[in-house]
């Protein structure tokens, strides 16, 4: 069992008891449990992870800006959580399946979403932005922790199909208080389901600090279910990659579920409707700014002479291009016709709804005639 943690006095400030491979200053350190999982990750792969994180940050800042401009209704920012999202999602295989919550823009990105796939739902054009079967990614979940059960059920399906695929599900520290996560861990352990639980402990559930959800490090709960766990530095993309590879391998090879607590921080508000200055201080935010997940990779690569100007310029250009594409996709979106709100409630004809649709259609037609 891989299990890194000691009881913490104060969960909110005791965030150093984590496994890591890159310090906040970009120094590569060893961790006997994590190191074996990333022996193949050289500068080139690290640059790719860095580029992913930069692009994700750009998608996120575009989302924030578009909300401020009234182009999307709401946005749940993930700045600060890039290493957790990219490190975990990039470790998946294409044929694995992901069950994210609303904040995992990085998972949706890593699974291959097109520019409009980040925005359509937040803009309010539809409840989902992409086809889950195409991305191998469930539509994001807003009911806290509900998706963790879906992930376990999907993993039970994989077991019945006899493949070596795996499932991952993401949820916050607040979600760990929900009954559904408890039930998901019970089911996963009982059936030895190939599922990886990724708890993004970003310290806050809207305004509630993690200490309201837990009195001991969250990773410590999993062993109680018989599920091995790891508490990693969620701002260290290399450590998250290693932990996720370990966990996925565990699931894939028939050893059952695994649990990762990624200790990180949400730099922005909970959503664009939130005012974090009411519940947290500047010092805390500054402390976490100094642990930026992108900066430490850059520092490490620079020290190795692996972060050249050409690379930096290319990444900056890629981010600009993606940012422009995201904006354009948002501004070019068209709204579906009114009658379509009655579509897809049922997969098969339902006479009650068909009647309503006929009525609403006739009502709408009346307007069109009047306009002629």
């Amino acid at each position, binding site marked *: 069992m891989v299990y890194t943690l000691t009881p913490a006095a104060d969960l909110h400030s005791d965030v150093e008891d984590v496994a890591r491979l890159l310090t906040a200053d970009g120094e590569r350190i060893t961790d006997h449990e994590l190191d074996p999982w990333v022996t193949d990750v050289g500068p080139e792969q690290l640059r790719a992870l860095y580029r992913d994180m930069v692009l994700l940050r750009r998608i996120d800042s575009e989302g924030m800006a578009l909300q401020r401009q009234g182009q999307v209704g709401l946005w749940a920012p993930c700045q600060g959580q890039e290493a957790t999202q990219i490190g975990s999602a990039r470790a998946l295989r294409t044929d694995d399946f992901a069950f994210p919550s609303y904040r995992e823009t990085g998972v949706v990105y890593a699974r291959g979403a097109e520019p409009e796939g980040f925005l359509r739902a937040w803009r309010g054009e539809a409840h989902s932005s992409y086809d889950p079967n195409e991305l191998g990614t469930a539509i994001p979940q807003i009911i806290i922790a509900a998706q963790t059960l879906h992930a*376990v059920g999907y993993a039970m399906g994989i077991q019945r199909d006899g493949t070596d695929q795996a499932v991952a599900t993401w949820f916050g520290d607040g979600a760990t208080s929900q009954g559904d996560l408890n039930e998901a861990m*019970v089911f996963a352990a009982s059936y030895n389901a190939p599922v990886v639980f990724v708890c993004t402990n970003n310290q806050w559930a809207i305004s509630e600090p993690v200490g309201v959800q837990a009195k001991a490090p969250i990773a410590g709960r999993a062993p109680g279910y018989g599920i091995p766990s790891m508490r990693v530095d969620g701002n260290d993309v290399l450590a998250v990659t290693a932990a996720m590879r370990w966990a996925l391998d565990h699931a894939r090879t028939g050893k059952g579920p695994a649990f990762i607590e990624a200790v990180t921080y949400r730099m922005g508000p909970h959503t664009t409707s939130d005012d974090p200055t009411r519940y947290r201080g500047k010092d805390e935010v500054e402390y976490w700014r100094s642990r930026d997940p992108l900066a430490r990779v850059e520092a490490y690569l620079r020290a190795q002479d692996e972060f050249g100007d050409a690379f930096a310029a290319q990444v900056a250009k890629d981010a600009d291009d993606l940012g422009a594409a995201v904006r354009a996709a948002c501004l070019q979106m068209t709204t579906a016709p009114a009658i379509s709100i009655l579509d897809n409630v049922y997969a098969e004809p339902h*006479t009650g709804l068909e009647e309503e649709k006929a009525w609403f259609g006739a009502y709408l037609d009346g307007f069109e005639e009047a306009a002629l």
Partner: protein
Amino acid sequence: MTDLTMVKAINEGLRRAMRDDDKVLVMGEDIGRLGGVFRVTDGLLDEFGAQRIVDTPLAESGIMGTAVGLAYRGYRPVVEIQFDGFVYPAFDQIVSNVAKLHYRSQGAVKMPITIRIPWAGGVGAAEHHSESPEAYFVHTSGLRVVAVSNPQDAYVVLRQAIACDDPVVFFEPKRLYHTKGAVNLDTDLADAAPMGLARIARPGTDVTLLTYGAQVATAMDAAIAAEDEGTSIEVIDLRSLSPVDYKTVTASVRKTGRVIVTHEAAREAGVGAELIASVTERCFNYLESAPVRVTGWDIPYPPAKLEKHHVPDLDRILDAVDRVLDRPNSLTGVEL
């Protein structure tokens, strides 16, 4: 045709659905070795094995939520909720995910989940074992809700529910579990009445009596008793509560001009309220008198020794018949 209890008819329905489609699996508490607390799944574990007859941990949201994940993966889970009163812990998964995922995903994700609920009272059970929660589900768009009243329907409608690409809440009246009836196990699903269709259980001309589930038997008794008094009652077994077959219902009301609804669920905002509102909207000019509801009282289900005062019986239905026919009765003069 074979004479079977409803329990056995459902058991056969499950067995044949599982033989026909290896994506069908059954999950729930105690459904394996024990065969379920009502023995509805008796013998299925031996035939299909533990991968398809899944004894689950004791966690209703867990059962429902993992069924969602299995449906994502292309399976067709049939979930057994042990008793009506225990569906509430699963309610969030049902209304937020089971019912909505097809809509939320613009049709990309299907949720062909059948939720079997041993349902309602009249069997002298302990608290939380006799509830009628159907209105909660009827009110939830995206679900289909059916309630069966005899072994043949139980067998056919269950198989239709499992084959349906939508989630179906399937109510099984406990009180009729051991009543026998003729079942044609070779019924061709393609020829059977579609799942949403109501059944005219007894034709009549004076009053339309709408009901479903175990109340169908009580309504039939009332219709026979009324016949003795010279009143002809048309009993309609709705079978489907979402959608309701208003074609059959309105044709009957236009013929009789009088309508009564009976169910054992509480009255306030119940299925009866919806039925009467809809019938009134559609048939106002045909109505000879105000529609009447005969329901359980607006109380938590009472203790077993008193339940007979809650579940509407033949006399309460006949009392309503007098009212819609404007005859003097026990309630004449009571300001409602």
